[in-house]
């Protein structure tokens, strides 16, 4: 079973490298933001596999924390490239 975890970790690491390529090369900003969001998901799965390999459950809080932070970061970036501001001052309706 341990070999299975290591193989899965290797495959996700390759996916990580591919996403890093898209992050660096990506022609538009939106490509880079999507790559960053997917990098967050890949990082979450890497941490999950590491917690299986190290046989600890103390990493599980980090998984939820990273998903929340990746979500908020992606929303902030998306709002910035769409409107130019991150926080509106007034309600816009």
């Amino acid at each position, binding site marked *: 079973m341990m070999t299975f975890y290591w193989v899965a970790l290797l495959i996700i690491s390759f996916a990580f490298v591919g996403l890093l390529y898209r992050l660096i090369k990506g022609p538009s900003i939106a490509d880079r933001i999507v790559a960053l969001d997917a990098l967050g998901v890949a990082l979450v799965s890497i941490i999950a596999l590491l917690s299986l390999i190290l046989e600890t459950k*103390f990493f599980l*809080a*980090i998984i*939820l*924390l990273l998903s*929340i*932070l990746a*979500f*908020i970061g992606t*929303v*902030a970036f998306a*709002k910035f490239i*769409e*409107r130019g501001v*991150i*926080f*509106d*001052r*007034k*309600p*816009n*309706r």
Partner: protein
Amino acid sequence: MKTNDVMLQTATKVVIFIILLFAVHIFFTGHYTPGGGFVGGLLTASAIVLLMLAFDLDTVKKILPLNYVAMVAVGLLIALGTAGASIVFDVPFFTHAYDYFDLPLFGKTSLHSAALFDLGVYLVVVGVTMTIIQTIGEDE
């Protein structure tokens, strides 16, 4: 320009409660597992930031009428008060105490005065983070 972000606002209304609950969980489990006042405070601040992203600064100020600078002061007072209470009981500064109590709903619970110190840390972290973000966000 009129924009319609009903998806973001609806998702925020659901997700914000999960984040706040997780923040409270990570605050209270800080004694035995990773977490504590600092991470809990940052998570609470990020929940409020998500609310600011989905809505706007005036709406958030209306639904959460908190003075974050006063929150920093209250947090520091709680932390200092926990440390200073040791003087009353004639023990060295910052000495903490704990005991086991039989609470009606929770059963046998160990209550530690370090949790009060952590509450001070939590309030300071939330207050400082939200002060920084709100001041930058209101800048023209």
